[in-house]
């Protein structure tokens, strides 16, 4: 049978599938792909939605590079990402190890760890805003109750970003912990037994058995977290508005300001294009690693 005939037959067999797919493809094209392309084009234009768009070449990018907040936003975003990795990577991993060691009530603790994920992000942010209130907030009341001085939390440039990272970690650690837990449970028990027979203590077992066995999961989640945390928006938007003193202005918050506060859609598109490229690098690495781990 010629390849053409085979191809035709396969097409005929799958015509229903393609038919069912077509609606989704049209919707994607209209509401996702086409606007993305349009957004890229917009990076090189200025629009006011009254007259025809005006081509401005690289002017939007020049304007961004001249904005002192541009550097600040990238620095803050990387700081958030770095802190989020320290907390959001280590804490869920250790939590998963602890859960894995539990003999009783494991299901209960799994549920407790996962609960915060079920809260809508804005609710989480508002809840923590009250925790952090420098006056009657939960944390400062607690600190004062044990005779410690309160902290300014979100009201000081020194502590605001760290405060946001804690919120983000608390809100998102449930999913990560469960993935680690699933990975830990695939490790054959005899490896631990062998290590134990060789006299390895808990830390050596963790280092020589657990970490190598979960290496791929760790790496994939690390990359996913980088991609996710570099797009931090909800926490600074709801909790600090980028303040105090621009210490929590992130790239996505700046993008939002350009588009919906300054109404400068060209520069906003240019900024999203830059972020898109930066994240593309991480995403490419993610795809390669997941491919390798699948093999």
């Amino acid at each position, binding site marked *: 049978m010629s390849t053409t005939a085979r191809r035709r037959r396969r097409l005929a067999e799958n015509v229903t599938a393609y038919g069912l797919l077509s609606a989704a493809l049209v919707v994607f094209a209209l509401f996702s792909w086409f606007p993305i392309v349009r957004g890229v084009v917009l990076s090189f234009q200025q629009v006011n939605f009254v007259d025809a768009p005006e081509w401005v070449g690289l002017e939007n990018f020049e304007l961004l590079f001249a904005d002192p907040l541009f550097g600040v936003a990238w620095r803050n975003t990387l700081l958030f990402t770095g802190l989020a990795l320290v907390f959001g990577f280590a804490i869920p991993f250790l939590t998963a190890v602890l859960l894995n060691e539990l003999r009783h009530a494991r299901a209960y603790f799994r549920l407790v760890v996962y609960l915060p994920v079920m809260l809508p992000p804005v609710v989480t942010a508002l809840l923590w805003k009250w925790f952090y209130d420098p006056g009657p907030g939960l944390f400062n009341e607690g600190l004062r109750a044990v005779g410690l001085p309160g902290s300014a939390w979100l009201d000081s440039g020194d502590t605001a970003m760290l405060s946001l990272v804690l919120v983000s970690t608390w809100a998102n650690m449930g999913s990560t912990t469960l993935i680690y837990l699933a990975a830990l449970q695939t490790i054959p028990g005899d490896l631990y037994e062998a290590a134990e027979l060789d006299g390895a203590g808990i830390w050596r077992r963790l280092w020589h058995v657990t970490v190598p066995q979960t290496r791929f999961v760790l790496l994939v989640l690390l990359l996913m977290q980088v991609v996710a945390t570099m797009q931090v928006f909800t926490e600074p938007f709801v909790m600090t508005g980028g303040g105090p003193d621009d210490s929590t202005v992130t790239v*996505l918050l700046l993008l939002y300001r350009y588009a*919906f506060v300054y109404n400068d859609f060209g520069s906003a598109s240019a900024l999203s294009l830059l972020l898109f490229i930066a*994240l593309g690098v991480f995403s490419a690495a993610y795809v390669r690693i997941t491919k390798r781990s699948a093999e």
Partner: protein
Amino acid sequence: MKSPRSRRVLVSLAAIGLVATVPACSGGSGEERSGDGRLKVSINGQPPQTQAFERMIFDQDVAEFEAAHPDIDLEPHEGFMEVESFSAKLAGGQLEDVYYVYFTDPAQIIARRQAADITDAVKDLPHVDQLQPQLLDVFRGEGGKLYGLPTANYSMGLVYSRPLFTRAGLDPDNPPRTWAEVRAAADKIAALGDGVVGYADFSKGNQGGWHLTAWLNSLGGQIARKEGDGWKADFNNDLGRTALDHLKQMRWTDDSMGSKQLLQDADAQRMMGAGQLGMYLAAPDNIPTLVKQFNGKYEDYGLAPVPEGRGTLIGGEGYMVNPKASPEKIKAGLTWIQWKYLNPDRFDSFTKRYADGQQPVGLPALPNPDIWTGALRDQQEAVKAKYANVPAQNYAAYLNASTTIKGHLEPPSAQQVYATLDTVMQAVLTDPAADPAALLSAAESKVNATLAQIR
């Protein structure tokens, strides 16, 4: 397994692209004519259902206007200015023919050519030439062209607690006129003890910058000055340092500002409503808020002109017209604005409805905004006095000074500028070792960078 958060950048890119994909269509927002052949004009500024009285007034006015103008069909929409959705509405043909703006909006809207030029169209409107020129200037673009009309305004003054003045041995009918007098009065009020604060100022949510701007204006200064085509920061100077030094002395030397800082307007209103605060800078519209939301009494509050009185920060609201509207719609839209908001023939009936509805009358605010000059201002004042149901004499000092104090508009990119200056206010109010000169210098370069972004 991929988190939906990781798609956010694509979503944002797509969202912006989506807004921009809508082709610019000609004509106003939708159909020109309604079914019965009347000219359809969409308007916003309709108060929400939750503000029952204001909503009732608005809806009655729409009905009355349509009865008086049988060829116009008004289509009212709830809502005011939402800068986040403005461009999307314009792109999607959803922006009203007549739309509401704050005084901080027109400069950028005009620069982006997103409002209709109404210079010729207003020539047929009565009374426009008797509006305060500085308010009309808010809506002017290059060559003095006019793009909108002011309908209400406010200027900063000093709100003070008459009972606390009395208790502290001060004369409530003779409020402080200078910052030195404010300082002395705050000191006496704070000496009452029991957590009473003499003077409060803000340092959070961009309101610190807003108040520093008002303070600077009161001394005759300004936050930004126009230089050629652009703007430059104008506060890193003696006036800026004077304001901050004075604030620092009140906060740390006199301890008359309380220890709880990082305040916003709602905090000061709560303190004032509870009888725990002597003075704060505010516009007259704060007084009904103190009464309605914070259990205050009208007779307890006085309103003085801003200390020193060498200038005052003004703000307000008005209406602009959709740039895609046809000349016919522009004319009809302006007819509505003039009839509803700028209409001396309705001063009396409009004010009476507020008085009958047990709403406060006698304040320099709705239903009697202080936007007129000359004979019309006198006419408005007479109507206000006729129906006054709040102690107007408590605000007389403010009102008498309001025509002579020079009004300053908010700086361009006001909110960003204020956000930067919040930091300055925060430092002075929370750190006894704060150095005003260094703070102003650091803020200057940031504000200059913000101002350089305007295009």
